[in-house]
């Protein structure tokens, strides 16, 4: 017992505590995670605290590292698709799409009209689904537990649509080079139309419950500010970057699939605080609904996939594709040596860059602010560790 109290292990560099002050107070460390209700996964934050004020946050990664990119070197190109489900599991469709697009670029495969529409349809549903889960978790992190259930109730509708579409609810493995695994089932578009109507109603409901709540505004306004320059330097993308004013959305600035055919706005924030990140995501859900309305209105008949092939012998070279997931820019980089398996795979995950800004944002705030910031960063830990 005594040994416990006296033998303090030497601290690694960057972890020094300040000297005991004149009033006898001292800074201390708090381990948040790997099991903590608001890290949403196995993220560990070593927080240096002065009372309740955060001095420094050091994220510790690697608790769920599975070497997905290394595994990709031992799988064929098509087999790699399903591994990306396990990165950002809330954007699995969009990750799949990124991989498929890289393969299509390499092989020069085209996608039929209906296939492109399916891609946009499913991607936007996925984005709403992911933001809904985030919304619920955000409410719970800030203590409004009921919001969690409301968010999940809405998300469940989309998840059920996905289940109907590809049999999976989380790890989809749906897109293929040249289109998708299957056509949309009968009556699917009608169900999406119904969902969109319900979605508009529930988004208004969310505003009443959380967005307009004074406590939420108090807790989020001016908290965890990230300037435009710093956000750009950290490589923050997606809602986190856009809330800080980084006007970048892959869907608009480097249009893939048929995003250039649809009218939508890219919501921007100006303060870069938690409230902006919150509002940007809510606005994004409305924009996704807008895109989806255009998609279902013009949904064409025809083939959903250009040609089917079990594996692709990709010509030597390097190929890159970028998609906009619910969390930002997801890049897939293949190096091929003219074989059936990639020579190297690298993913650019939005969460890793977004997490890197955490320390700067949390400094000087309270522990409760740290939780709010973590929540509005909307991190998916398996996407950081991969």
């Amino acid at each position, binding site marked *: *017992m005594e040994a416990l109290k006296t033998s303090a292990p030497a601290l690694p560099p960057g972890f020094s505590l300040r000297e005991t002050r004149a009033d006898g107070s001292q800074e201390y460390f708090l381990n948040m995670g790997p099991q903590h*209700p*608001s890290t949403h996964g196995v993220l560990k934050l070593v927080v240096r605290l002065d009372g309740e004020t955060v001095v420094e946050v050091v994220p510790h990664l690697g608790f769920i590292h599975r070497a997905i990119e290394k595994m990709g070197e031992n799988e064929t190109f098509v087999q790699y698709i399903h591994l990306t489900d396990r990165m950002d599991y809330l954007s699995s469709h969009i990750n799949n799409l990124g991989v498929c697009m890289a393969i299509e670029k390499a092989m020069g495969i085209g996608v039929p009209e209906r296939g492109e529409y399916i891609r946009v349809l499913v991607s936007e549903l996925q984005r709403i689904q992911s933001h809904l889960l985030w919304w619920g978790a955000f409410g719970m992190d800030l*203590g409004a*537990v009921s*919001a969690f259930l409301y968010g999940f109730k809405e998300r469940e509708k989309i998840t059920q649509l996905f289940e109907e579409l590809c049999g999976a609810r989380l790890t989809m493995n749906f897109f293929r080079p040249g289109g998708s695994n299957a056509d949309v089932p009968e009556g699917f578009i009608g169900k999406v139309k119904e969902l969109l109507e319900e979605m508009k109603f529930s988004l208004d409901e969310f505003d009443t419950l959380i967005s307009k*709540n004074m406590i939420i505004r108090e807790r989020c306004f001016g908290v965890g500010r990230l300037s435009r320059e710093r956000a750009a330097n950290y490589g923050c993308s997606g809602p986190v970057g856009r809330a800080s004013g980084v006007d970048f959305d892959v869907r608009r600035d480097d249009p893939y699939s048929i995003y250039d055919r649809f009218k939508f706005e890219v919501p921007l924030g100006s303060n870069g605080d938690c409230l902006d990140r919150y509002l940007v995501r809510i606005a994004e859900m409305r924009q996704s609904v807008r895109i989806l309305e255009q998609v279902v209105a013009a949904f064409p008949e025809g083939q959903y996939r250009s040609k089917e092939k079990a594996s692709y012998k990709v010509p030597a070279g390097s190929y890159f594709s970028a998609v906009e997931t619910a969390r930002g820019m997801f890049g897939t980089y293949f190096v091929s040596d003219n074989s059936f398996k990639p020579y190297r795979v690298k993913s650019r995950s939005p969460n890793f860059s977004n997490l890197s800004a955490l320390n700067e944002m949390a400094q000087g705030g*309270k*522990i409760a602010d740290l939780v709010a910031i973590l929540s509005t960063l909307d991190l998916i830990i398996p996407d950081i560790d991969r």
Partner: protein
Amino acid sequence: MTEIPANNPVGDFLRANLPAPWAAIGNGLIAVAALAGLVTVTAIFLIWLERKVCAHFQARLGPTRVGPFGLLQPIADAIKLLMKENVKPRGVDALAYFLAPLLPITGSFLVLAVIPFGPTLQVVDLQAGVVYVVAVSGLGILGILIGGWGSNNKYSLLGSMRSGAQLFSYELSMVLCMLLIVMGSGTASLREIVLSQQGPFWHWWIIKMPLAGVAAFVLFMVSSTAELNRGPLDLSEAESELTGGFHTEYTGISFSMFFLAEFVNMFASAGLGATLFLGGFLPVQLGYAPVDHALAMLPGVCWFFAKTYSLIFLYMWFRWTFPRLRIDHLLSLEWKFLLPASMANMLLGATLVAFRWIIP
């Protein structure tokens, strides 16, 4: 004003048939047994109610499997908690760690002793009842403080330090609201306070003292929510920040004592609110004789529980609707708004009382 007898027939029976000291001891034992029963049943029922209310707020059903409407669920939970090992983590201060869970429940038990459940159902009617309530409810804070300190866990420590700051501050505005009623009724005895509200419902202190009564009630509800450590002011628990705060390390029976105290405290606090502001055990009277006679048929204890449970529902409503405040917002809410507001309200109340601008 009608005279309402204060003595309970059971007590009278014992007093008539036993020598004085034995009658006192017998009555004391009956009171303790009755309170212990009430505490247990209330806690179990409130756990069920909280789960049901929360479920319906969240578009769920809540417990449905154990017993009718899931009524036996809390009993199953209690058995589970009692069977669990009472873990003593390494490095805890054993005395503080094991003593702490007992203090909050003691505090709420003592508060219940002066609450008039019915005209003849009150353990003891202290002349300084309101002061006594304030004094003994402080035991709960002590339990949380030493529990958090003794747990040897930084989350617990943070939680208990938060609750120290929070509970001591909110007690001020709560006491001021209670004193307003003391001022209006001219007595600190809870029974006398109830009796000063006889008549139609506008004789309840919430309405009787124009404006000041409602303001005091609102302030009382807010500050008692903070006192109870319930959401949105449950900063010492703060599940999503501090993983449970002061009771992070507690399991089994120790945890269930904290849990029990939380619910009994809620009952005591709501009971106090009903007593002070809503006429306690007095029946609701609408000022229309035939209806009033019918309403007065219900015994006082039913009215007390009806009013108390309405307030409990309000507490639950707060909890399952609002997000949590941040510690500095919480403290500035108290010191910059609630406390000045209570003081201004007190001044208003004093003026009203002095000039007899009170609904007769």
